[in-house]
């Protein structure tokens, strides 16, 4: 503002009130203070977890290039999953390791098969396949088929070799592509392999006990139990086939409980604080937009403007500007002007002699004032110092 208010009576502004009286630029927060304020806004705790070079000193182009590079680096670290190495694919295409038929399962001493795989093979398969994307898993099946093996990794048998393009499945009466049927040695293996694929398609995460990292939870399909049941149980089974399969033993119950405990469900429960939750949601959204996690980016921006939207407290319904009061004060000074007022403002079109004389009295001060724009005029007018200007 170029006009200095009179000392005796400071002008009453109709503009939004500020906490500081506008006496000059000295009241504006210094750059360091601004940064401090920004930091306070960013992290309520006040502590910064990430340290990074101060980019604000660099020229704009360099700073932007640096920001972009940092963003890409972080995206490549967090978003892009490295491809499965060829060795892993090769290893899994030569699975199972014990192919010879007389090999027995170390625990139940049954011959090894797809339904009864060696525990070491099964463990290694599950461990390796957790890193696969669904697409890579399909590529693994393709790779096994190239070698003539069944698509299910733990199956030692060869795949089917149907002729022709299509085949009628007698069991269901459907027509299937032989290409799809020839991927497996049997329908059971197809079910087992696709059971794994479904888990990769819709992953549920759990914490790995060894490394403490979050991994995709993959497990083998439960094999249908072919236990020899006693006569009583057989009768029961005849009554309700489905329910007996659903019955859970105590040991199974414990296993389920342990698995549930490992499941990484408490990701959201950790965040009890609602504000922190909102901040995380916003950051996640920002990452999706490609702007990266909020904190770092806002700091990287350096010169970026922090926009905080504050609601203005409303006390009542909005009113039109009250001109009666203003015209009352001006009427006391020059009552002949009252009829020229429009909504409390006197248009500057035209002249009248008295005001011109008044202008001469005020001299240079009024001239400097008149360079101001409308808003100031209103202020001046309200303080009764409105002068004629052309």
């Amino acid at each position, binding site marked *: 503002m170029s006009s200095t208010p009179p000392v005796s009576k400071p002008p009453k502004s109709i503009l939004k009130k500020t906490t500081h009286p506008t006496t000059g630029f000295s009241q504006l927060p210094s750059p360091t203070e601004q940064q401090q304020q920004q930091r306070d806004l960013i992290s309520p705790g006040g502590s910064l977890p990430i340290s990074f070079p101060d980019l604000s000193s660099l020229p704009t182009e360099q700073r932007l290039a640096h920001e972009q590079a940092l963003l890409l680096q972080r995206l490549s670290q967090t978003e892009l999953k490295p491809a499965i190495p060829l060795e892993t*694919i090769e290893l899994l295409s030569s699975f199972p390791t014990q192919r010879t038929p007389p090999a027995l399962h170390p625990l139940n001493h049954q011959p090894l098969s797809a339904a009864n795989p060696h525990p070491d093979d099964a463990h290694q398969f599950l461990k390796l396949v957790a890193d696969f994307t669904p697409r890579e898993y399909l590529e693994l099946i393709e790779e096994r088929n190239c070698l003539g093996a069944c698509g299910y990794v733990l199956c030692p048998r060869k795949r089917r070799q149907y002729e022709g393009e299509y085949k009628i499945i007698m069991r269901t009466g459907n027509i299937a592509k032989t290409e799809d049927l020839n991927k497996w040695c049997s329908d059971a293996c197809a079910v087992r392999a696709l059971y794994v694929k479904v888990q990769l398609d819709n992953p549920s995460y759990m914490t790995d006990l060894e490394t403490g990292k979050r991994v995709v939870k993959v497990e083998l399909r439960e094999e249908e139990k072919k236990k020899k049941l006693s006569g009583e149980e057989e009768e029961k089974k005849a009554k309700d086939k489905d329910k007996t399969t659903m019955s859970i033993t105590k040991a199974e119950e414990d296993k389920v409980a342990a698995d549930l405990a490992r499941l990484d469900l408490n990701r959201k429960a950790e965040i009890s604080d609602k504000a922190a939750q909102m901040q995380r949601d916003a950051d996640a959204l920002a990452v999706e937009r490609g702007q990266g996690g909020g904190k770092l980016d806002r700091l990287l921006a350096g010169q970026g403007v922090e926009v905080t939207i504050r609601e203005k407290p409303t006390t009542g319904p909005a009113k039109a500007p009250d001109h009666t009061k203003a015209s009352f004060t001006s009427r006391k000074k020059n009552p002949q002007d009252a009829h020229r007022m429009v909504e409390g403002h006197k248009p500057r079109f035209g002249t009248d002699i008295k005001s011109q004389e008044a202008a001469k009295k005020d001299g240079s001060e009024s001239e400097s004032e008149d360079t101001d724009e409308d808003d100031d005029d209103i202020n001046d007018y309200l303080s009764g110092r409105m002068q004629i200007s052309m």
Partner: protein
Amino acid sequence: MEDDSSPTSASKEVSRLWRAWRTVHEMVQDRGYELAEDEVKISLERFKAEYTNEDGTPNRAKLQFSARPSEAMIKKFTAPPTPSNPNPVPECGTIWVEFCTEKGSIGVSVMKKFVTHCSDNKFKAGIFITAVPLSAQARKVMSVTSQYTQVECFLEEDLLVNITHHELVPKHVLLSKEEKAALLKRYRLKETQLPRILSKDPIARYLGLKRGQVVKIIRVSETAGRYASYRLCV
């Protein structure tokens, strides 16, 4: 239904292979390798006599050859000498061409065998011609080993016709590094300001273009007689 053992299907396959065999020879010759005319323009009768078994079925194991680069090609593929590198080595070497004997799908193991054969015998480039598409992982093997052996794969059915002989395909000529530098200087261009051609473009695949190479395209023009344009391989 087609029967592989019937004489008609076997002769059909032989004539298909003969056409692919001729095209791949023309391709290798067009890239600048040394091949004798009678090797390239082999007749069907001679092909049948040389490359089929007694029962008339093709013998793919025999369908393989190597070729050495010509003087002109070595010159083209040698970077101009610089003070730091006064005797640059040519970027091209002997090429190995092989038809895949595998009838079924081609996986990592088959591809690895081909790549190791190329690198063991010090071939700088390898062309593998298959009857069926590669698996996704086998394709990856190709890109992984591209530093020491430039391996390319073609389908037999893509080579039945030599695309460069089509009347609508203009002549493409690969520029050497010197020529490229001269072109960029003459027109005061940066590399990126040239028009582009994809490396998976059929002609780019035919000529074995690599990223950063520039190809000169000479078209016939009604008004000017000939019109040359340049494209950068990306």
